[in-house]
């Protein structure tokens, strides 16, 4: 049985439709990322699960128990859902010590004092906070606060852990370390987790499965590899990674392939939408799949080098051909002039 089932969740705020019939399931022990640009409704969805927002329509089940059902008007308040939530701002209670912050959930559950000490000590120890138990929020670094927030949400073993952009307030270096660490901790405890983020790298790295949301609707759902390497629509393809975009007209359609053409160029690519000859279409290729070619060929375009930017670990080249501008990465500095750019058919998706 899944730990969490959300069915056709809808939510309107004023005139804006924040959630537009979102459904998903969270399997036991699974980490599910809710990924999307700001305004996509991912945080509203998380807060609806937590019970902090009330959806207008839909149904939410936790471990087989209905906690919200718009049809019957049934709702279990947030405090009785027994979930754990890590806030983006951490929301550490500033007037309580680290120990008291973490212990609060156990106190509310009337755990005996000895058990509270033992369990809080255990979770603090596991998160590397053992020596900070008596500190207050303002005496902690951002990374430590984030771990206190996690400890507070985990200590009473909630069936589902909810995380709302937990790493976005950390600086870039710390975030990379925290990513791996966070996944490890969640996997160790075996709880299932719903993880909201706008950062695709974070979603890919941490989650077992990702839900890509846009304007209150699920665009694509799948494993990180599926989302990144096999997008089923233009939004997903464009949202992930860095891309080169080709606008043109379909001039030839074959088996799952098509030829896109515009002024000065024509290219074969994989057809990922049902389109007919003569229709306008957009093609996309990840920048890392766009390479410098060694000479002319079927998937080659001769383009002028506009500029080359040194980015440290690589060079970024900007090529132009009529109105078409594309980017490619390489290892060396290029002199001005014309080059052959390779746009492999297998990596070019036409929508």
């Amino acid at each position: 049985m899944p730990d969490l089932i959300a069915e056709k969740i809808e939510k309107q705020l004023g005139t804006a439709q924040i959630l537009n019939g979102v459904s998903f399931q969270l399997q036991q022990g699974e980490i599910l990322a809710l990924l999307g640009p700001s305004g996509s409704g991912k945080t509203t969805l998380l807060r609806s699960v937590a019970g902090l927002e009330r959806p207008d329509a839909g149904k939410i089940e936790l471990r087989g128990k209905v906690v919200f059902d718009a049809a019957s008007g049934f709702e279990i308040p947030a405090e009785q859902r027994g979930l754990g939530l890590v806030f983006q701002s951490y929301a550490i209670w500033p007037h309580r010590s680290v120990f008291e912050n973490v212990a609060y959930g156990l106190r509310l559950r009337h755990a005996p004092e000895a058990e509270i000490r033992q369990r809080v000590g255990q979770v603090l120890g596991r998160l590397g906070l053992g020596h900070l138990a008596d500190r207050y929020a303002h005496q902690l670094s951002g990374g430590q606060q984030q771990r206190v927030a996690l400890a507070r949400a985990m200590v009473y073993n909630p069936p589902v852990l909810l995380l709302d952009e937990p790493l976005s307030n950390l600086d870039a270096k710390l975030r990379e370390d925290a990513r791996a660490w966070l996944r490890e901790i969640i996997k160790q405890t075996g709880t299932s987790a719903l993880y909201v983020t706008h950062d695709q790298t974070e979603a890919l790295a941490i989650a077992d499965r990702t839900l890509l949301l846009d304007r209150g609707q699920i665009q694509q759902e799948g494993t990180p590899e599926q989302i990144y390497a096999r997008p089923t629509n233009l939004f997903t393809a464009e949202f992930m990674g860095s891309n080169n975009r080709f606008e043109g007209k379909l001039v030839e359609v074959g088996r799952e392939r098509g030829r896109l053409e515009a002024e000065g160029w024509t290219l074969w690519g994989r057809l990922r939408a049902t389109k007919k000859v003569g229709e306008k279409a957009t093609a996309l290729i990840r920048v890392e799949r766009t390479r410098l070619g060694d000479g002319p060929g079927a998937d080659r375009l001769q383009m002028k080098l506009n500029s080359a930017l040194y980015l440290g670990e690589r060079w970024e080249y900007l090529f132009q051909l009529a109105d078409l501008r594309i980017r490619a990465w390489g290892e060396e500095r290029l002199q001005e002039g014309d080059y052959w750019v390779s746009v492999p058919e297998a990596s070019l998706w036409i929508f």
Partner: protein
Amino acid sequence: MNRALRSLAVIGVALVVFGPLGLIFYQSFLSEAFFFPTAHFSFGAYRYVLADSGFHSAFGTSLLVSLGMTLISVPLGSLLAFLLARTDLPGKKWLEPWLLVPIFLSPVVLAFGYVVAVGPVGFFSLWAKALIGRVPWNLYSLFGLVLIAGLTHVPHAFLYVSSALRSLDPAVEEAARVAGAGPWRIAVTVSLPLVLPSILFSASLIFLLGFELFGLPLVLGDPAGLLVLTTYLYKLTNLLGVPSYHLMAVVALSIVALTFPLVYLQRRMLRTAGRFAVIGGKGQAFRPLPLGVLRWPAVFLLVLWLAVTVLVPLVGVALRSLVSSWGEGIKLSEVLTLDHFRELTGYPNLVRGIVNTFLIGGIGGALSVAFYAIVALGSHRWQSRWVSFLDYLVMVPRALPGLIVGLAFLWVFLFFKPIAPLRTTLFSLWIAYTVVWLAYGLRLISASLLQVKPELEEAARVTGAPQGEVFRYVTLPLIRFGLIGSWLLIFMMFVREYSTGVYLLGPGTEVIGSLIVSLWGTGALDLIAALSVIEVALVGVVLFIALRVGVRLDA
């Protein structure tokens, strides 16, 4: 706090607000005071009041005073706000707390202070006469009243304009400076126009307060025969020999009819201007605008205002309390005495008044803060129609001058027999004070509540805490300093309050403020001076404590 309790809080507020107001409304349609068995439905009171030429002239005077004081206090207050919020005015850290002092001084004490300082035989008047041969001013005139009302309301304009200026992105001023504008030009063409919504808001507030003035026109307008609506109402009390409650009710309603639209207008203005909408800036430290050669003229302006508004009346009160008599040809050093303070102890009602003032400020203030906190928490993070109803509800007392609330509660205690015995206890005074300061008190508490980020409470809820437990564990501990600060501020407001107690004044309910008003009618200047000094000292001590513990006065 569950639904039922929250609804109960709202209903409680509705009761204490609409009960008294409803009684005034009812009384206004009776032929005489409601406790006469012969009282019956009648428009007579309306006919009498609306045809009375005294009412017409009081209405005209009120309008002139309101307009005049707005025109004085808003430009001056805005200018001072700019100087203190945005420039490198010398000594501004030290000067700023003084700017808000007039808010905590009782107008009736200030008015009395002006009388003994710059009245026809005031200390400063006689000193001026000794110097130049005549008194160059006339306190007892419409102009004198308007000027003093204007100067004492500068802090209200200062408060709103400076808080808006502080949230203004300093970059817009720096841009003007780089373009070549001097400080004066920046103020007039950039900063002040950008906070125009707040300036207009403070103007409408001061215009409203103009109609509620009581202490200043009572003391300063009387000798010149000037009556405003509130003093006209006060005079009606003794006009006919028998209690003319029906006439008073009509006058009270006519004042409310003027003030209520103004309060509603302000609410609309607040919504559009958004008091909490930060225009820009990240609150980072910025370099104040250098005033250059204007530094010292600016300091002079501020100090001059302080001297005229605070120093002159307070020096007057203090000196008057220390002299046995005063007039032309008397040397100050020969008449100094402490007798007036000794004299006070001979009047049991005055002694009770001092004790009661302390009790109503200390204990009453604490109880009121508790009440405001319950109401504020009742509507805190609660999406409900009750909350918007409460929003409108707390507007109502803002339109009610203390004098009228006091009158209304007197009637309530006379009208509802079961609670009649409470009339002669401090409880009657406390409930009237609580209603008069309801909007102010709720604003203090909500300002503290705004500091509590919603996630802190949500975190407790998700952890498993029911609503009441969330308040107990998270919200209340986080706002406890705000509550203490609110208590100190309410203490000062209750101590300086005078008009609310005027009608409730009786054995057992004496407080310094209303005693001064009633003594003013008997001309006992010595006792008034001594009482005033005690009141100012009481407020001064609490103000000092409040500033020391870091309470923000500009709530």
